[in-house]
């Protein structure tokens, strides 16, 4: 079974994140980045599937120069090869454009029996790229899998909701997004680090994918971020002395904050 895993290079949540003042997009130049932690679950799941059977895991990312680090991390974990789509014109792309580029890249890879994604990126976190990508590739779209099994040419997942767990089956090829409940991603090993250096990574531009630059980037975005304001620093908490009415005042506070 051949699997393509879409992985995103995101700003490290541990570092000071910000926005590019000129166009209000996420600043990806001046912060340390890494493979989105939520995508590690997709990589791990792909590796487990291939280790239990056969086939290859290809990791695919769209992102700036440094996004090569996200591919490298996945290769160190054990993926077989990488594809890095990078083109200055992609900068500022919205979710529809991101999914367009991913779809064309997956076609150029030669398709896949299974496309795996994370449940959301840890920066944009819209969770919509998987759905859009499945639509563009004409694949069954099975999202938020907390358990995944492949049997012959069907994939079965469990999706945990607040009230119930659903079991969903789809025919392969399919696209599945996975949650952080599905597995425990491995650390790369020393051998993995050394082996990754010898694994092939393709670098593609928009031209390689036959995409016109007018279809992507900030200019093609359907929406525009007009303004960004930094969240104000956390206020000091209020201490309410309990004078017999503590319970009522607590409930009042929670209601005012729309918690109850």
């Amino acid at each position: 079974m051949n699997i393509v895993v879409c992985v995103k290079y995101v700003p490290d949540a541990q570092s000071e994140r910000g926005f590019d003042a000129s166009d209000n997009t996420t600043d990806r130049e001046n912060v340390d980045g890494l493979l989105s932690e939520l995508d590690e679950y997709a990589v791990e799941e792909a590796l487990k599937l291939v280790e239990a059977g056969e086939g290859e895991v290809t990791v695919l990312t769209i992102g700036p120069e440094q996004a090569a680090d996200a591919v490298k991390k996945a290769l160190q974990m054990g993926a077989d090869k990488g594809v890095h789509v990078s083109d200055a014109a992609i900068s500022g792309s919205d979710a529809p454009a991101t999914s367009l580029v991913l779809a064309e890249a997956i076609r150029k890879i030669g398709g896949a029996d299974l496309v795996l994604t994370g449940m959301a990126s840890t920066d944009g976190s819209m969770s919509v790229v998987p759905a859009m990508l499945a639509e563009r590739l004409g694949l069954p779209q099975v999202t938020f899998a907390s358990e995944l099994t492949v049997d012959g040419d069907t994939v079965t997942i469990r999706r945990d909701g607040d009230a119930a767990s659903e079991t969903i089956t789809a025919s392969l090829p399919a696209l599945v997004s996975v949650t952080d409940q599905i597995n425990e991603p491995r650390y790369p090993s020393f051998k993995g680090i050394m082996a990754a250096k010898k694994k092939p990574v393709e670098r593609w531009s928009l031209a390689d994918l036959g995409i016109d630059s007018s279809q992507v980037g900030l200019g093609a975005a359907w929406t525009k971020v007009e303004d960004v304001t930094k969240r104000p620093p956390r206020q000091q908490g209020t201490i309410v002395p309990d004078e017999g009415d503590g319970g009522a005042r607590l409930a009042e506070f929670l209601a005012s904050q729309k918690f109850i």
Partner: protein
Amino acid sequence: MFQLGPDHEEFRSLVRDFAVGEVEPHVHEWDRAHHFPTDLIPKMGELGLFGLVVPEEFGGSLEDSDGGAFTNLCIAIEELGRVDQSIGITLSAGVGLGINPILTYGTDEQKQTYLPDLVAGRTLAGFGLTEPDAGSDAGATRTKAELVGDEWVVNGAKAFITNSGTDITSVVAVTARTGTTSDGKAEISAIMVPSGTPGFEVAPAYDKLGWNISDTHGLAFSDCRVPAENLLGERGHGFKQFLKTLDDGRIAISALALGLITRMREEAAAYSQSRLAFGKPIAVNQGVSFQVADLAVMEETARLLTYKAAWLKDEQEAGRTSVAKVKQAASIAKLYTSEAAVSATRIATQIFGGNGFMEEYPVARFYRDAKILEIGEGTSEVQRMVIARGLGLPA
């Protein structure tokens, strides 16, 4: 020349991620409970930490290291030691005292029997040299092993043996008198005693000042019988063989101490900028900031000495330098770095004030853990003896 290569640094960040993700969240609790985390060992094995200096045929990755295998091991010990000293020594002793003697002196069969599991972290091994009455003077070994028929019969006791009593300890190699040499001296050999052998008793864990998470036991042997082929290396060479593995161990302890000093510098720098006294961060007082500067100097010196020694060790493996050069560099690094580590914890706890005396802050644990660095794998006095001898003095 003055920086490690990109492969080494990449490996460092892997071990750091692991140490911060899998060790840091638990150390406080493990330390309080004197708990040896058996489950962590196979995880360290999966990372490849026990196999860095072991050839591929036994599950290791020596060939992948491009001549820098021992340096990689030191990086792993440093990074684990930066998070917890006990976990660092568990790796250091697991490789240096457990794996190394078998790898260097074992027969093919002994290697096949023990190494794959040791490298995978499924088992651990110990080396027992020290006895209640033979420490610095390790040649004063009293434990005896007598060849009776096709079995060694071992009698005696060992003290302070690391990794000897864990649930996954498979074997302990011990030095023992096996006879008298022609010039009347004790003939000392190393014998491998598998865990669970009748007559091999592991005493309850010691009540230690520090290294609470590390496994240390006294061992007793009474008419303990093992097959004749459990001799490790050559008969009569047990002591000499052991001394050879000590150089590596000293560099490894230096790396462990370096991890500690680095952590003390980080903790002290952060705390001194956030702690307010007299309305200002305490770091505005030169009495404080100069001490943090001293920590940075100790760290830098320790780093240069440790990795110079590690590099020499790798050079020696490649046949490009002598054992004597490594020995001298190892003792110099171990002596300086372990003594600096003790000073560094004293400085850091002082900067933390009352909080430094509280177990809630990690500096307190490092303070307790530091002292053993000046004692294990040869005391500071023994290092000075080795260094003086290396200079040709009659020490």
